């Protein structure tokens, strides 16, 4: 796996003075993969991207692309397309000149340049904006120009540093689908930095969750969402309920856990735990069923303390003996009311242990 990785970060660290921003990081990215680096600000994801682009040098470790070390190469020799958060379009050039810039740097002939610039701008639906200045375009249009400029020279790797952060929600979702589409069509390897979890879930083949300069977990969006391995990941991606408790028995991949407040629940787990061990159990709000009477393996009796109308669903805060539970209740079920006594139930497969 590591041997044939397209991009490989090998024990990469980066420190600014006494601040370690990237800490002994190991990451392998396959050709054609769309990998998102997701994490809070200051978690080292952008620094890692800047090191891949060549704007920062690693303090230790090595970065290779296609088996060749690149960490000593200056940025202009790396042949990677970079899309910046603020677009970084050259304000003194027209849209067409911006997109032609990388081709000019590569000595592409004038006629071929014109043709490829035309194609690239058509691809991002800006065919009629060749002679405009960047300042005359909207944010979304500027981002499309930046995208065309980063793709026009057909780099094998495209790096994106929160490229959609400055756009409004609707436009951002549109651009997410557009970038996804371009990724599929051109078979590009894309490394995408974001702090928006929905964006990462929508676009990525794999997501790397960053925290304090390390990768907490990396995997497919569904793995990250459905089986977060740590409390940090569980809380960073989506919403979660955490129940802390003590293992009372462990057999056949099923744990008996006594949660705070004394109730027993069962948790499916392949890992072995000793009875008496302290664990944290994570359950997503949408996996919890709220009913007058249960029928599932795990039942916690609760009292509804708040109901929030969210349009497509109701967010119910249910007080259990172990603490408040957040439940995402579909509108199909009869609406719970504040003060109702109910049973919150979920199956052992829909909850898991987090570190």
């Amino acid at each position, binding site marked *: 796996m590591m041997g044939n990785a397209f991009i490989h970060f090998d024990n990469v660290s980066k420190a600014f003075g006494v601040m370690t921003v990237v800490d002994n990081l190991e990451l392998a990215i396959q050709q054609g993969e769309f990998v998102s680096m997701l994490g809070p600000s200051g978690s080292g994801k952008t620094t890692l991207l800047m090191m891949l682009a060549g*704007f920062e040098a690693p303090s230790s470790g090595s970065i290779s692309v296609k088996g060749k070390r690149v960490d000593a190469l200056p*940025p*202009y020799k790396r042949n990677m397309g*970079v899309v910046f958060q603020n677009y970084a379009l050259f304000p003194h050039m027209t849209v067409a000149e911006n997109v032609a*810039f*990388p081709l000019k*740097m*590569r000595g592409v002939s004038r006629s071929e340049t014109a043709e490829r610039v035309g194609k690239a701008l058509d691809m991002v639906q800006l065919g009629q904006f060749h002679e405009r200045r960047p300042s005359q375009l909207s944010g979304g249009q500027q981002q499309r120009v930046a995208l065309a400029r980063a793709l026009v020279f057909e780099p094998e790797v495209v790096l994106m540093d929160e490229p959609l952060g400055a756009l409004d929600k609707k436009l951002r979702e549109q651009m997410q689908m557009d970038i996804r589409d371009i990724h599929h069509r051109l078979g590009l390897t894309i490394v995408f930095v974001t702090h928006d979890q929905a964006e990462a879930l929508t676009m990525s083949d794999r997501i790397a969750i960053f925290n304090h300069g390390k990768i907490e977990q990396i995997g497919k969006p569904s793995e990250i969402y459905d089986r977060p391995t740590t409390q940090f990941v569980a809380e960073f991606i989506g919403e979660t309920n955490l129940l802390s408790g003590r293992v009372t028995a462990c057999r056949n991949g099923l744990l008996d856990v006594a949660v705070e407040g004394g109730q027993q629940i069962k948790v499916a787990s392949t890992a072995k735990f000793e009875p008496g061990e302290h664990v944290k159990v994570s359950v997503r709000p949408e996996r919890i069923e709220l009913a007058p009477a249960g029928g599932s393996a795990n039942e916690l009796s609760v009292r509804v303390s708040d109901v929030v109308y969210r349009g497509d669903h109701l967010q119910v805060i249910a007080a259990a003996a172990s603490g408040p539970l957040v439940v995402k209740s579909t509108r199909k079920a009869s609406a719970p009311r504040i003060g109702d006594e109910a049973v919150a139930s979920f199956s052992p497969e829909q909850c898991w242990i987090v570190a």
Partner: protein
Amino acid sequence: MKALPLSKAVFGSAVVVFLMAPLFAILPLAFTDSVFLNYPIPSFSLRWFDELFTADAWRRSIINSLIIGAGTTVLATVLGTVASLGLRGRSVSLLFGFFRTVFLLPMVVPAVVLGVGMQLMFAQYGLANTYLGVIVAHTVIAIPFVVVNVTAALQGIDHRLENAAASLGAPPIVVLRRVTLPLAMPGIISGAVFAFATSLDEVVLTLFVAGPNQRTVARQMFSTIRENISPAIAAAAFLFIAGTVVIAALVYLVRRRNQIA
């Protein structure tokens, strides 16, 4: 609520009057036909402009000013821009802080002190009483204006633009030529204009390092005032001011065009 705009207007006009009054006092005298530099003006004529362009001493001085001004502008702009590029983004380092201070020092060192020093040094290197000597002297005091202007322009450039250019395949020298310098151009042009203006009205250093052949307009005005106060000075001043206004207007137009386009 009403008092604030009123006091603003009064204060603003007072400042403008304070700054402009001397100009408006001297300018009409350029058009007098009297031989005395005083009011009231008996009748208007262009004889002093005629004098300026025909009298040998004045004509020579105008040509000298243009030669020295052009030389100073080129030298100061190039050196000042290079210095600003070198000092860019290194505000924390003590060494670079020292260099920055050195470049800005001529702005605060008394011209007389510089003049005495330069006179002694230029004599030793054969630069005394030469055009090159005067250009070098003027460059020393013009550089701070270029450094200040270009540094400010460079600070306004988003470093990510240069990173973007590098990622698109531009080696550092191309990034400089095609991204950094074009974006800093308004500052460089302002710096060049200031350098030219500094050279034009510099008197003290010129007195020390220039010989009779490098007499500039400012120097000529200075000695004319001492010897015989003629309205030719007012005419020269008029040309100075008109020239400055024209250059400032050009710079403004260039900037505006760049911003709009």
